[in-house]
């Protein structure tokens, strides 16, 4: 069983909203100072999904991450959680692609890895929230896709997935190889173990450049974009909250009820 998980390094989405800034000169998000980047949480959950399959019946888990300035401590986290190999597509030519350009490079890297039964991605990266890379990889490789999974089970050459829907979930099955994108409903990803951290320290990632995976540079990164960004801005929040007080919390609560009755919201 060979599992490939695609993960992305992003600015920490748990950083306080006040620290979020856009640099108007570059039309880019300025990374919050003193807050290190993280693996996108949905991708961590995809790693968790792979590890649960490994726990249940054994698997080799290969992590692929695409980007620039990939901090080794950050991108090695899946290794310290229990993944086996780490491949980095690290080159300026890979950077700033849209979903299509990114998925194309990832799909070509997956082809180069060769042995894969299951490809996992987060349902979306928590920076651009595009939510398409998994589907694009499936389309390029001609594989079945199941998106927004909360539970996966691999048996008899098939993957059975619980896919989150608006009012519950669908149970969907596909033959392997297949692409599955993982949602937060899967549950919290495990912590790295001390043993895992030590093992990850000793393991060096494999770094591939565009020429290593045979991609045309016109089709990857910023050059390969089909979707163009015209503007990036922060919506204005009004912030006109009327704070209801009282002698104590109970009193304040009663005053809130009175206030709501007064403005006919009760």
């Amino acid at each position, binding site marked *: 069983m060979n599992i490939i998980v695609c993960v992305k390094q992003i600015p920490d989405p748990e950083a306080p*909203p006040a620290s979020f800034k856009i640099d108007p000169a570059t039309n880019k998000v300025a990374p919050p100072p003193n807050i290190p980047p993280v693996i996108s949480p949905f991708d961590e959950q995809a790693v968790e999904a792979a590890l649960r399959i490994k726990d249940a019946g054994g698997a080799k888990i290969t992590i692929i991450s695409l980007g620039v300035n990939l901090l080794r401590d950050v991108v090695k986290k899946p290794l310290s959680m229990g993944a086996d190999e780490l491949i980095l597509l690290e080159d300026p030519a890979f950077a700033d692609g849209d979903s299509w350009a990114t998925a194309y490079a990832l799909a070509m890297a997956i082809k180069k890895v060769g042995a894969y039964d299951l490809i996992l991605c987060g*349902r979306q990266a928590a920076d651009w929230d595009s*939510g398409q890379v998994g589907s694009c990889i499936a*389309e390029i490789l001609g*594989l079945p896709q199941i998106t927004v999974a909360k539970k996966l089970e691999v048996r008899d050459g098939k993957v059975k997935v619980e896919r989150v829907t608006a009012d519950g979930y669908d*149970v*969907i099955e596909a033959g392997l190889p297949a692409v599955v994108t993982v949602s937060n409903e899967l549950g919290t990803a495990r912590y790295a173990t001390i043993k895992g951290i030590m093992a990850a320290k000793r393991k060096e990632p494999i770094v591939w450049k565009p020429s290593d995976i045979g991609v045309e540079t016109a089709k990857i990164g910023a050059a390969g974009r*089909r979707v163009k960004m015209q503007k990036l801005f922060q919506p204005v929040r009004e912030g006109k909250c009327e*704070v209801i007080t009282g002698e104590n919390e109970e009193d304040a609560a009663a005053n809130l009820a009175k206030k709501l009755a007064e403005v006919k919201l009760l």
Partner: protein
Amino acid sequence: MTDNKGVMIFTEVVDGKLAPIARELLGCGRKLAGELKEELSALLIGSGVAGVAAEATAYGADKVYVVDNELLKDYRTDAFVGVIEKVARQANPRILLLGQTSTGNDLAPRAAFRLGTAVTLDCVALEIDASSKLLLQTKPVYGGNARAIFTMDTLPQMATVRAKAMSALTPDSARKGEVVTVDAGLDAATIKTNLLQKVVQEVEGVKLEDASVIVSGGRGIGGPEGFKELEELAKLFKGAVGASRPPCDNGWVPTSIQIGLTGKVVSPEVYIAVAISGSSQHLAGCSGSKNIIAINRDAEANIFKEARFGVVGDWKKIIPAFQAKAKELLGK
């Protein structure tokens, strides 16, 4: 494909009727088509959906493409992508819109790449650029911290649209429209996934999407017991209970009541946010509420920036006192 014209809406059907999102998309599509002085079409895909065509016309479609086939009874990616590809190549729309639903967000990227174009998911605003005539696609990014406006040069320009971001037209049953039946041309062997079971997690009482009052709990509720108290309060207002992501991820409540970027989008009259800090990703699902009431122990919590009224303190003390007073005022 240089002669692409018109706006096409993939109109989802639920229980034999147009889904609310489909009506909203037709309303939005009508406006865009009007600006382009082009046609608005609807695309109905399913089994036994031909009868819904009249509803699509009433909600604004000039033409309705109907693809009715037993293989299309349930949504399966490969089948629906194949049909969209076929109809889009036949009809050559300039713009193709879908809903940001569990079907739309699975279908749209794959259909877009099959057609050699691209798609922007989860848009909250769509406009035609006055000079370029391109579709300006506004989408929340960075968990709702920012918004980006995208365009694409490839055709059809595709987007999915978030629930309740657009308004439906008042249906007009006297409107006339053309119905075009298209053969699905499906080969069952190309459908690589199998739907084994559809599980509906029944939520008691009022549905979140329909509720005029929502009592929503966050991480600070601390466990499933706390949500029982919120349920009592919701019952008093004939409302529904919602949650931010952490209670769902921790299994305190079913995932189907999650409100936020990756959950449901709601816009009730009153949204009572209890022990919710107000992350951008949560606000993405509730900021359309008419009145947000925040109850949080942290006076600096982000939720107070969105709220109309707030109380700072421990919800365990505030909720029972608030409920007792509200009961008294309501004469119950």
